[in-house]
């Protein structure tokens, strides 16, 4: 073994200096910026804006479901357009874009100690292509026939037929084009996130010293790069079916007494392609949330994350396994039923690493010094909703239990809890946590707590009872819940209750938006490291960090990201770039 050089004598010169493109004008600084931090803010703002549209759509849906027949303008046609756009926007244009494009862009370079992403120009293009995808998507609201109403899964044949809103109009074409654009844009960004983690790490930043946030986003991006092509292929082929009359997915069809020109295609093929993307997509959203929540808990409980190595291995295991479980979305799709045995097994195996992560979060709290800050509250709420949603996932993954429950409100409740509410609670927690770094000011505490309580309790009250509607057999994607023999009067009341909660929760998000904007000017000054955190983004010379992140010299990393409450150290945290060793031997007895 080589001699250990005294830590402070390590020359930083070995760190390759990046050629940064320095902006010259207002336009290149704030609009066509190549600075990952600006791109991150652009991504986040766009994602939140389009997310707001999706939130409004969910209100409209809940109006119809909670008070059927009261609102004339919500025709079945419109209802299906609302659910489709709501689902697609939330999953792809909000969650994926915000976690990877937003948090990924902001946090990866700062956390690994890089000046910027490795390909800043491509990174900038990525945002603009994403924006274009969003605009194409939005334009479908104004196209003749309106947006597509095929459901976010876009299953053919109905997605491109007249019985579905937008099927023979512009809706589906614009949707598919928008998705194709999104995938192209994402691939540009994704290359950056992956290669920056591979090549941009500063001296001393080994993989095992990376904060779990970076691990989560990195693994999710690798998965996204490999999963999105499946959606791309499915979209291109469906576009050809729709526009040029090919028969990739379209079998012989008699539509309303009329024979269509297609022949022999396989709708199941689409479902395989879609879910080969769709299932990893769940983890593409979940893994960044896992990573971020680990850091939130650790920082605000002033304790290292429990079982860091296990957490990293679990992320990798989940990432790998998530590519062999896709058909659990297709148990009752009519595919070969014997696949059910295999996919049920793989699906339930994935529960093990996921459960390990939950245990380790909770065990991090054990003997911690828990500060009940707003990010911490959101992290706790995340654990509750994620455990709840994860456990109902065991119902749906267990092939035979899925038979009565699939395509019912149980599924809706499950996936909203696990990949809607849970990751969004993390997003909120993360925004309260990193907002001081982005703007230099804290978000308002009172408004924040108000926002937290309404969002958490309201969301739980929306989705927990919904499981029982599904158990009762109430199918999802019903624009009309009238004439349903299985639905008792009280079930209709429950629906109205859920709708009212949905409006309240939605309203709380307006408070949050107000807080976001108001605090830019009026928030309390935060200082460089208000949470007394160890990771590199809190150690920048300026807050908000300037172009190039770390001033003249890049930081050198001397320790892992979780040196909280180290015995022998004076403070209860040691930043990653502080040299020296503290305390006695650190191997726990």
């Amino acid at each position, binding site marked *: 073994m*080589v*001699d250990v050089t005294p830590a402070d004598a390590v020359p930083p010169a070995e760190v390759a200096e990046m050629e940064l493109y320095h902006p010259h004008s207002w336009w290149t600084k704030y609009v066509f910026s190549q600075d990952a931090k600006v791109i991150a803010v652009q991504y986040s703002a766009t994602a939140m804006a389009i997310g707001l549209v999706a939130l409004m759509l969910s209100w409209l849906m809940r109006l119809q479901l909670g008070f059927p027949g009261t609102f004339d303008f919500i025709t079945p046609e419109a209802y299906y357009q609302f659910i489709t756009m709501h689902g697609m926007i939330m999953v792809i244009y909000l969650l994926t874009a915000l976690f990877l494009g937003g948090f990924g862009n902001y946090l990866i370079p700062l956390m690994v100690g890089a000046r910027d992403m490795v390909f800043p120009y491509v990174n900038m293009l990525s945002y603009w292509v994403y924006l274009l995808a969003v605009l194409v998507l939005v334009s479908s609201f104004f196209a003749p026939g309106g947006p597509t109403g095929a459901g976010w899964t876009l299953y053919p044949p109905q997605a491109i037929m007249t019985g579905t809103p937008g099927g023979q109009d512009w809706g589906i074409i614009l949707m598919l084009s928008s998705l194709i654009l999104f995938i192209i844009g994402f691939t540009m960004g994704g290359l950056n996130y992956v290669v920056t983690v591979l090549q941009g790490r500063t001296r*001393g930043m080994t993989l095992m010293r990376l904060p779990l946030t970076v691990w989560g986003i990195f693994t999710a991006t690798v998965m996204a790069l490999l999963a999105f092509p499946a959606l791309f292929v499915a979209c291109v082929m469906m576009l050809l079916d729709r526009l040029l009359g090919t*028969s990739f997915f379209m079998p012989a069809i008699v539509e309303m007494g009329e024979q269509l020109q297609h022949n022999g*295609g396989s709708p199941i093929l689409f479902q395989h392609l879609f879910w080969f993307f769709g299932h990893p997509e769940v983890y593409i959203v979940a893994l960044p949330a896992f990573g971020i929540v680990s850091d939130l808990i650790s920082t605000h409980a002033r304790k290292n994350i429990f079982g860091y190595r296990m957490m990293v291995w679990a992320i990798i295991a989940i990432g790998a396994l998530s590519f062999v479980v896709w058909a659990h979305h297709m148990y009752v799709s009519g595919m070969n039923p014997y696949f059910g045995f295999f996919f049920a097994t793989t699906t339930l195996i994935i529960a093990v690493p996921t459960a390990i992560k939950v245990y380790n979060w909770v065990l991090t709290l054990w003997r911690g010094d828990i500060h009940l800050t707003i990010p911490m509250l959101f992290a706790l709420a995340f654990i509750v909703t994620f455990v709840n949603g994860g456990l109902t996932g065991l119902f749906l993954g267990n092939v035979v239990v899925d038979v009565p429950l699939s395509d019912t409100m149980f599924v809706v409740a499950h996936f909203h809890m696990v990949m809607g509410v849970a990751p969004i609670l993390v997003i909120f927690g993360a925004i309260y946590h990193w907002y001081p770094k982005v703007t230099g000011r804290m978000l308002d505490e009172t408004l924040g707590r108000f926002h937290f309580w309404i969002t958490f309790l309201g969301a739980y009250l929306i989705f927990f009872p919904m499981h029982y509607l599904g158990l009762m057999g109430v199918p999802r994607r019903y624009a009309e819940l009238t004439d349903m023999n299985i639905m008792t009067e009280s079930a209709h009341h429950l629906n109205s209750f859920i709708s009212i909660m949905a409006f309240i929760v939605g309203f709380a998000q307006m408070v949050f938006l107000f807080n976001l904007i108001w605090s830019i000017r009026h928030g309390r000054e935060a200082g460089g490291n208000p949470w007394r955190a160890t990771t590199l983004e809190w150690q920048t010379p300026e807050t908000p960090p300037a172009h190039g992140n770390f001033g003249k010299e890049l930081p050198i990393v001397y320790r892992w990201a979780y040196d909280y409450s180290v015995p022998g150290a004076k403070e209860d945290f040691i930043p990653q770039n502080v040299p020296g060793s503290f305390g006695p031997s650190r191997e726990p007895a």
Partner: protein
Amino acid sequence: MSVILVFMLVIAGFAGWWLSHQRLTAKPWLEQGVAGDVVGFDRSSLPTAKIGLGVFLAVVGCLFSLFTSAYFMRMGLSDWRPLPLPRLLWLNTGVLALSSVALQCAVVAARRGQVDMVRLGLATAGLTALAFLAGQLIAWRQLTEDGYLLASNPANSFFYLITAMHGLHILGGLVGLGRTSAGAWNGTRRERLRLSVELCAMYWHFLLFVWLCIFAVLAGWAATFVSICQRLLT
């Protein structure tokens, strides 16, 4: 979905190999206070751009594996009528291979610093790639004239779709090649030129490889090969 699963296994193999070199079993909390020699500066010595291109090629590979997977799944259905591949495709294959060889020559020349040879290699590669694209278009025309239209059979649809996707990727490569050539004529720094020529060559070889694979699939050899393997196994 077997093709894409095999591809994923290959990717997983690479990822596993790389991760196994990253000391994932280390206990990071014990390695405090050191930055240099013990836990060094462990990025790869390859240029970042090459790694970026490598990751991108993995994505492209994934895309074509998925098309191939879909091809095999659709092929199993009853209405599949394979179309005769135009002879011209053989010529096109040769031209594309020539393009790759030319770029490889350019790489060798760039390493030696012979700028004239680099220019010659780049120009040849660009022209042959254009010739390949033109050849593909002619092949399309021959097929449509013989009545093998896009929508008349799924085999035809896949043929046009996959060749078009491959062609688009070549077209994208030509943009990169154009920029490299502009650099070669305007006298960019030597290392920079060398890197960008190497990147082009990497991309070209990969697309040649992809083309050989899809040629084998479209010609039906891949299916025959798979069925022979299956017979050997059973």
